[in-house]
């Protein structure tokens, strides 16, 4: 049981450019896999394809297969995929439904869509609010949230679906360091305790160093390196791929060049 991309290539409808080329990637349950790479490498497309939103909702041509447990994304219904694999994208403004009057109701949007019993909906919303520590936001109107708050609420909305897998495209881009740590802890907790398989695209390699077991580098639509996170994040080729190494690695390297060591 895993999220599996096998020999995946992808082209958007109406475009001759191949955005992903022969991608092979597996995310096991309980594992956090990080994706790094320069902008326009296809990381967002990778997320769309992994979650089954492409070619399902976003038109395009998929070669190879993407399976989420026993579902094949090219044949399953979007709502079946959504229950199995939660996804979150970059612009928090468009991730929110735009029809709810309070953050609480916004988080309840997903579970409500599933037709769950009211008890269950309430329990799930309260659990997520507690995990992400957004209790003070529950009464706020979603339209009045700052970018960072909206991003946390959007993540909460996805977590409330309690999917077996998560595909996240830069979930902390708008968050300050405290928010980033909170999300990092929440994701690590989900993987460890709830056995959720997580695929996360991030620029913040410091974050990935803390929570990812493996990291893959995506460049020009191809996975050019994939290994244990400690190995990848220390790889000298990362800056060449447009990726900032974690601060600890950077400082250690700069220090080593000067013949000193930084504790």
């Amino acid at each position, binding site marked *: 049981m895993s999220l599996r991309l096998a020999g995946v290539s992808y082209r958007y409808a109406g475009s001759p450019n191949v955005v992903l080329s022969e991608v092979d990637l597996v995310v096991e349950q309980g594992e956090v896999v990080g994706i790094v790479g*320069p*902008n*326009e490498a296809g990381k967002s497309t990778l997320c769309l394809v992994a979650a089954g939103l492409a070619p399902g909702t976003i038109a395009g041509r998929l070669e190879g297969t993407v399976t989420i447990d026993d579902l094949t994304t090219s044949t399953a219904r979007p709502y079946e995929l959504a229950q199995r694999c939660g996804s979150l994208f970059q612009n928090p403004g468009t991730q929110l439904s735009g029809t709810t009057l309070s953050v609480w109701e916004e988080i309840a949007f997903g579970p409500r869509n599933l037709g769950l019993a009211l008890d269950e909906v309430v329990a799930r919303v309260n659990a997520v609010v507690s995990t992400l520590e957004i209790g003070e936001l529950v009464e706020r109107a979603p339209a009045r949230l*700052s*970018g*960072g708050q909206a991003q946390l609420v959007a993540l909460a909305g996805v977590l409330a679906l309690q999917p077996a897998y998560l595909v996240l495209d830069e979930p902390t*881009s*708008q968050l*300050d*360091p*405290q928010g980033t740590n909170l999300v990092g802890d929440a994701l690590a907790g989900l993987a460890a305790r709830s056995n959720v398989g997580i695929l996360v695209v991030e*620029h913040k390699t410091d974050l990935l160093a803390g929570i990812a077991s493996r990291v893959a580098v995506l460049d020009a639509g191809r996975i050019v390196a994939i290994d244990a996170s400690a190995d990848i994040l220390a790889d000298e080729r990362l*800056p060449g791929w*447009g*990726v*900032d190494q974690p*601060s600890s690695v*950077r*400082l250690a390297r*700069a*220090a080593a060049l*000067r*013949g*000193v*060591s*930084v*504790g």
Partner: protein
Amino acid sequence: MPGPPRFGASPLADPRGLRVAAEALAFTYPDGTAALAGVDLEIEAGERVAIIGQNGSGKSTLVRHFNGLLRASSGRVLVGDAPVGDRHVADLARAVGIVFQNPDRQIFAGNVRAEVAFGPRNLGVSGSELQGRITSALEAVGLAGQEATNPYDLGYSRRKLLGIACVLAMSTPVVILDEPTTGQDARGVARVQGIADDLTTAGRTVIAISHDMRFVAETFARVVVMEAGRVTLDGTPAEVFAAANWETLARTYVDPPLASRIGDRLGLGSTPTDAALIEAVVARGG
């Protein structure tokens, strides 16, 4: 050390900057929100300043006074040495250019050239001068040769750079950048740093709002910290990010750069950048 100023058709040709200042500046939004509670700030011509602080501390509100988008409720704003007064925004745009955070809130043209031409055209630039400015601006942001490309065919980070090009082409003595590195990968951030260097070399005044502390510490010689509509700290990165100020910074949700924290932990004083930290370690003898 920056090289000599460049001359010619480059948009960065005129080595002139302008002083901008706020004197007891207060501003309240029509709905009653008090956004600025008395800001005193002087930025000399050619200075490179970063403004940091939490969302809502007044950073964006403050810079919008420099080009007239917002008018002081009380106090004064000066551009050059003259008060802003009633000068139209279109007029102040000759002196102060602002690059906003979201490029998609301004792109309207079907090709990059027309988009970059918009600003200078509004200022009355035309003909070969205009073409020269467009070319140089695109070169400066790494979009040379993309004149015919549709802006929406560029990825988000390159659209942000396009937004910078649009203001560079206006050759304003003061350039303000609102969160220039959000959404940029490492190459994009390096590009923005290069642009800031070029502008300073040309003597322009550069002001940036950012929440990327590493970018701030590495790129700016002066850091202004805002909290609840006031300036709470103002100095070099080493001064502002020194351990003594961490509590003040925390109040406005600013975390000092990692290099500062390591330097403090190792007892090396205030080391806001990787380079400063390494220097301090070397100086101590490794």
